[in-house]
């Protein structure tokens, strides 16, 4: 299987991510696509720690670690400064987790996107506040266990659809991506790099520790999320033009849920209900693309 993946690495070994960490894989691919003429902003998230303590850094690009909710706002400031200094080439990239994107960082992200700030915002989504110990975020999927939604109190709210929320801003470019589909991910990042205005990429990143899965299953599970339509791969340009990038095999969602400890409490009825919810969402997405699904 031939993949076109650029050769150069922009990340060093020796970082402290958990074995099998999806976020580490995601960063590696994204940096390969972006190259080194970037400034990266990392608000509080797992990567604040993965990048290594003072005086080490695992990334070969300039990084500004910032406060949790400032992903969108710090990027705006950096971009303004670069423009003032006459640098119109360096790409400003925010690299945030789901907490700093969906919840506490949503305001700054929304503000930046509304102003059409010229930067790329990349959210690597491990579906909970993993860095602080697996607490629930608005990105946690329906049905999941977390430390703040334990036992019978499992999350009964749907996962917030961040891409749709940003599409409502008429964002220049928003796309979903997945670590198990590296070529698609790299193409999207490259495409985003060559655009101006606010660009958002939502990367599905398995967390073996928080999802209670063996570390070697990170990629398989990420792939399953796409194959079951739980995490479709699509992109939206200018808030109106939807393109679905991959026609999944349509596996049943229970195949995906069975593999993960964080869903082990769900009953057959729960799974059937979730199957319906996923199909409903998928049909809605198809309608937005202007495709009518016969099945």
């Amino acid at each position, binding site marked *: *299987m031939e*993949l076109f*993946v650029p050769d150069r*690495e922009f*990340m*060093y*070994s*020796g*970082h*402290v*991510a958990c*074995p*099998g*960490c999806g976020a*580490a*894989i995601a960063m*590696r691919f994204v940096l390969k696509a972006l190259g080194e003429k970037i400034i990266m902003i990392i608000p509080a998230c797992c990567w604040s720690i993965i*990048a*290594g303590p*003072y*005086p*080490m*850094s*695992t990334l070969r690009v300039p990084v500004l*670690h910032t406060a949790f909710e400032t992903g969108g706002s710090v990027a705006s400031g950096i971009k303004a400064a670069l423009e003032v200094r006459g640098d119109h080439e360096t790409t400003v990239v925010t690299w945030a987790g789901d907490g700093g994107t969906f919840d506490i960082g949503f305001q700054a992200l929304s503000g930046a996107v509304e102003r059409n700030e010229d930067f790329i915002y990349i959210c690597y989504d491990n579906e909970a506040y993993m860095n602080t110990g697996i607490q629930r975020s608005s990105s946690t999927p329906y049905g999941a266990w977390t430390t703040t939604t334990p036992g019978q109190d499992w999350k009964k709210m749907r996962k917030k659809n961040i891409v749709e929320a940003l599409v409502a801003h008429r964002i220049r470019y928003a796309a979903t991506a997945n*670590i*198990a589909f*590296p070529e698609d991910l790299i193409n999207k990042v490259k495409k985003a790099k060559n655009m101006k205005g606010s660009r958002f990429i939502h990367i599905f990143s398995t967390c*073996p520790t928080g999802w209670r899965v*063996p*570390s*070697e*299953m*990170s*990629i*398989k599970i990420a*792939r399953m999320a796409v194959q079951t339509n739980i995490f479709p791969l699509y992109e939206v340009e200018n808030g109106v033009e939807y393109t679905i990038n991959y026609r999944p095999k349509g596996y049943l969602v229970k195949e995906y849920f069975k593999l993960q400890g964080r869903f082990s409490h769900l009953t057959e009825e729960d799974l059937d209900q979730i199957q319906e919810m996923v199909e409903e969402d998928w049909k809605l997405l198809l309608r937005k693309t202007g495709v009518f699904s016969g099945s």
Partner: protein
Amino acid sequence: MKNSNRSNMCVPLLIPRSYKTSEENKTGSWRFLRPRYLEKTAPCSSVCPVGQDIPRIQMLTVQGSFKEAWELLLSENPFPGTCGRVCFHPCESACNRLEFDEAVAIRMIERFLADTATRYELQPRLNKLAKKGKKVAIIGSGPGGLSAAYFLALLGYSCDVFESSNKPGGMLRWAIPFYRLPLKVLEEEIARIESLGVRIFCNHHVEFEKFKHLRSNYDAIFVSCGYQKGRRLNIPGEESPGVEDGLTFLRELKSDPSSPSLHGSVAVIGGGNTAIDVARSVLRCGAKPVIVYRRRKEDMRAFGEEIKMALDEGVRIEELKSPLKIEKKESGVILTLQKMKVAGIDESGRAAIEPDNTDPEIVSYDRVFVAIGTEPSEPWYVCDSCSGKDIKLYNSVMRFDGQFPVIFGGDLTTEAKTVTNAIASGKEAAMALDVLFRIGKDFVLPEISRCRVGNGLSVSMEIYLNGERKNRVSHVVSYAEINTDYFNLIPRTPQPRLLREERINSFSEIDLKISGSVAMKEAGRCFNCGICNHCDNCYLFCPEIAVKRQDSEEGGLRAINYDYCKGCGLCVVECPRNAMVLEEESA
């Protein structure tokens, strides 16, 4: 830093700022499981009688390295062009891809590689060892004998082959019709064997009694004279004119294609490949063949493909009919047939039959050919397990009295009586003799076992000569161990063939050739079970960037930097073809 006089101190501006990479943090210490490259055996290789390294051949074909792939074929089998046409391809039945969509067309690709080499007049680089000064006599120039000659010559021995008929090749020349195996292909492959210095003496019949004199002129004898004699029906009227042995008919046809003048309706009694070959040849000679078989069609020992093609060409099969007697007529014969019925299933899985209650049928035929099986023309080999002189190998038997080794191979000793098994026995015999001469009798069995491929009955010359392949473990990769996420459903390339009308009018080869791009595409369907084909998934998905693209000590094509590997196991799971293994970290 001192506290006194602080306001006048010039204290450096100290902020959290990195100036080192994280590489001094050797995260390899976290590991409790360790991945490594470990190539394993593919099921196709394991069932292939000659133990071909099929996944690697497919890989080389995909890369366009046709010559290298062909040379790999030749390292285990001197007859790729032949086997690429007539082998019963157990590899395709064992192919893991069968469970995914359809088996890879392995035989078609083998033929493509051989034909491409022929077309471009390529000269192979063969691994020929220095002369060892010993001579071996080989009886029978069929696939078994010629294969033994080939491998012995490569190992450095002088070989003389004694053939009773007037041309070499055995069943390949005399039994398999041209529409399956063109003469040119066979002669070219025999010529290649002769070019190694092998001498073939035709018209040299060696009888069982007489071969004792060979002992004084040679250091060993390999006997593979095959099953030449047709078995008899043992029914009244078998000697009538118009009733002939099927194999003899085929032989005559090969010697002089214009010779037999057949017409009318011809019965072929039997259910094996020979019966089918006779029937289809009869068809091409202008007569109407009818196969008469005592069991059911599905019990016929002939290859399924062959039966299908025979039916397609218009051969009729009369099943569950057993001949009772044959009587002569003025022109032709009368066959009395008893209808049979199924009375259960015997140990081989075939129908057990008994006569049913109807009256026998009387049918006239212009000719009858008998093709119910063969046996050796002389009692060459009788199994002698009690004497302790016999060393039973996978496809051959070595009889060594302490002084002079005689090896029996080919149809005499193989379990399945096929061309490829005969070739395998020749290779095995060559290896066994080499071990015997170099180190001694006690090492023959262990050495042959060492060279076993997977869990089948084949041995690999590459392993014997300590090639790269020796690093592969014999674990046979199953379908469950393949990560099929990386493959899409692609239908198998159909074998292009002559149209029916074109086929039945001549003995031209039925299967047509394929182009290089088609071959590469079909070879691309191969999962390459158990070997590394540099897909780079391990390199791609390693979160620690601990997989390096360079040769490793273990013989794979990648290396793991254990300073940083945390043992997460992603490389092992994402390897689509199970070329890696995850083991506990030793303390």
